[in-house]
């Protein structure tokens, strides 16, 4: 599994009027669990988007292993993104598909056989404790359950990296703890976890590396950190 490296990265918006990230130098080693913390608008989401090439740096380079994301051709981006599993605050589930179909979709797009889908999806759903909800639609689930579906979908392709952007933003404390436990478990299985959040409780619960961002700059990087702003 490759490392992720930021070298002198700048990201500007609105014709360079707004600097979302400034001079970011960062190395995330394979298999690490990293929490990126900061206030709203600090640049956490922009930083994660640069990792899976949803955004491109204005200056500097972002490497995934030896690949510079700037060099990836547009038509190869969907294939590059299959290295990452992504989870968001608003879940981003497909509303017209059942829990099973939502998770299966990630396998369908890469051309997995129907047999493989029928074998893999129930395994992942039981891992997140949602096997019995397979036939339900997203609007029939609680926030915590929706996030577990999103997590299951992110995991199904066994990606090298899981990027979770405010995954507990819409969840109660108990559900948040469940999600963080699942992320820790996935990390133990070998995946790199990048967690962007301003949820103090789950950062402290994880007890892993914490990178603090303020106004687009890294202001803290602690190996076994606590949420301090």
């Amino acid at each position, binding site marked *: 599994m490759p490392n992720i490296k930021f070298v002198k990265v700048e990201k500007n918006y609105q014709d360079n009027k707004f600097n979302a990230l400034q001079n970011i130098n960062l190395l995330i080693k394979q298999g690490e669990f990293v929490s990126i913390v900061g206030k709203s608008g600090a640049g956490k989401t922009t930083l994660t988007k640069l990792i899976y090439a949803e955004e491109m740096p204005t200056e500097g380079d972002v490497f995934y292993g030896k690949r510079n994301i700037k060099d990836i051709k*547009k*038509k190869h*981006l*969907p*294939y590059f*993104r*299959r290295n990452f599993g*992504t989870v968001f605050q608003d879940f*981003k*589930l*497909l*509303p*017209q598909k059942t829990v099973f179909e939502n998770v299966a*979709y*990630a396998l*369908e*797009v*890469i*051309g997995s*056989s*129907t047999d493989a889908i029928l074998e893999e999806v129930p395994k992942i759903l039981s891992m997140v404790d949602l096997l019995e909800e397979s036939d339900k639609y997203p609007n029939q689930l609680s926030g915590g359950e929706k996030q577990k579906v999103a997590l299951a*979908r992110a995991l199904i*392709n066994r990606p090298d990296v899981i990027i979770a952007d405010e995954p507990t933003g819409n969840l109660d404390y108990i559900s948040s703890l469940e999600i963080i436990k699942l992320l820790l478990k996935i990390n133990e299985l070998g995946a790199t976890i990048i967690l962007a959040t301003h949820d103090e409780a789950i950062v402290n619960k994880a007890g892993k590396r914490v990178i603090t961002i303020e106004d687009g700059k890294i202001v803290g990087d602690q190996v076994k950190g606590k949420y301090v702003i």
Partner: protein
Amino acid sequence: MKLLKLGRTFKEGWTIFVRNSWLSVATVSVLFLSLYVIGATLLTGMVANELIGNIEKNVSIGVYFKPDIDESRIKEIENEIKNNEDVSSVEYVSKEQALDKFSNDNKDDPVIADALNEIGENPLLSSIIVKAKDQKKYGQLVDYIESNFSEEMNNINYGKNKDVIERLGKIVATVRKIGIILGAVFISIAILITFNAIRLSLYVRKREFDVMRLVGASNLYIKAPSIFEGMFYGFFASVLAIIAIAGTAYSGLPLIQGLISRNDVINFYLSNFLVISGSILVAGLLVGVVSSMIAIRKYLKA
């Protein structure tokens, strides 16, 4: 794997088509109307062509001789005209044959029978019926006959048929023009409405595209269901249009039965079924697919 993905996107396209049922009904209806106008114009044009061809085949020059010209001279003239390279056939009709035919054609009309009895003798003239190899040569042939046999000739009738053909030709050309203009207007409206219907359905699913891209779906994989959706609009509208045109041919067009060589307009429709329905189907599918391809481009930046 490509086949598997194709099957999955096809199924997805069908699901979207069924799920947005009202939007689908509206789009299919407008597209159907446009295709119907185009198809009906095509059919009318084909029938009119058949009709003109049929009338043209029956065009001939009737050369009527003065009563004092004897049969041997007429036969000589017949042979001379036969030798003209533009002539396809020459048929001699004696005054007796002409009377028989006239009497037979009017046997149910007592006024004409009484008039013939009153006259007491055969008032009709001997004639020859000349047919040209090429329709365009009739004018030249008339000139040739008039300049060489004017002394023997009583009259020549060609002008009447010529007028009928020219008038029919003008009517057909006008019908075609109207059909093309109406067809173009309807097809433009159909493209716009299909395009907007698909755009609306894409707008509703805009967020889904982001999700699809995030899980690593290629642009083609995201695009394909919408292209199939457009294809379904085109397909169902075409099928409806083909059925409606068949219905029109069955109920309306028998008015011209007998005027065309194939007796029956339905037979004519059936024998041209592949051309008419094929054209409608291709037009429908093209409108559906092209509209969806244009509409989806907006939503698929990498």
